[in-house]
């Protein structure tokens, strides 16, 4: 695991009325729609109104939830609702307004695979419908793989290291 110092991107401080709740936020008590489709995604978090990428990520997750069974030609199933919810929650927690977005892919088990890639570095996070997400990072200093928890490298720092944003 590379240990080079990383400049952490600055997160803006916003006032209360600049934030909006995601569906299911406990302070509201009712889930909010994140999409005009029949399926809703929810995340127990708040994000600033200016975060343009929320809609893009939500649309992509909904696409993955509607993949046909066997989409990979080997019998894989579509992304499960729980995995999509957890992915949205995770991204709201770790990204900033201008963070580089990951490539979102489906896993064969109904989970979501997040990937940031450059030829020199890559970060992948596997978000299953249940159980602990796992993380893989390859960079100049070597590789790291394990559960995504308090002991794992900081995702936001790694994304910034890989993409510069």
């Amino acid at each position, binding site marked *: 695991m590379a240990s080079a110092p990383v400049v952490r991107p600055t997160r803006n401080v916003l006032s209360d009325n600049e934030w909006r709740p995601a569906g299911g936020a406990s302070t509201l008590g009712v889930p909010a729609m994140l999409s005009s489709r029949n399926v809703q995604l929810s995340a127990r978090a708040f994000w600033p109104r200016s975060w343009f990428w929320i809609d893009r990520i939500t649309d992509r997750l909904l696409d993955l939830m509607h993949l046909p069974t066997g989409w990979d030609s080997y*019998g894989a199933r579509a992304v499960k609702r729980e995995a999509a919810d957890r992915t949205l929650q995770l991204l709201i927690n770790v990204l900033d307004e201008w963070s580089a977005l990951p490539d979102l892919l489906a896993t064969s*088990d109904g989970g979501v695979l997040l990937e940031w*890639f450059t030829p020199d570095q*890559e970060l992948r996070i596997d978000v299953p419908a249940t159980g602990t997400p*796992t993380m893989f990072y390859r960079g100049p200093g070597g590789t790291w793989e394990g559960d995504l928890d308090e002991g794992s490298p900081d995702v936001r720092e790694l994304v910034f290291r890989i993409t510069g944003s």
Partner: protein
Amino acid sequence: MAIEPYQSPFADEVDVILDDEWLLRRVYPGFLDWEHRDPDGRPRVKAGAFQDYGEEQAVKLSYESPAMSVAIRCLVDAVTNPSELLATFGPAYGLVAITAGEARALNQGVMWRPVEGEPWHAIVFDKAVRRRKSTAQSGLALAATQRWLIVPPDPRS
């Protein structure tokens, strides 16, 4: 209490499937990265293309544990040609190869597991853990990116 090391229910058939044998794998279009190409213009294969079956699908196929399907090239060549492996999946899918030796170098085992209509069918499985981890998936993807058989057309052109 010490945790018992994982023991795969599958056998690595080193005497049946030799290290230089090519193992073919279809690649879903979403697992092709056209932003990063090799000098010949062929896309990078994402590591996600080398996932094991999901748990439900493994049970459905009567596998004792998750594994990944491949086709043994010499057996494909004996009865048809590799392009037939893509015949029912459309032109956007690709076909890549790894060698059995490359898989074994990543602590993977290879076992011939023919199924009805596919005498060439085999499985690749992780010898150390129940489901293949990202490190091994990346290694397989890196090997496959250097051994393309059928490159689909670039969807952006």
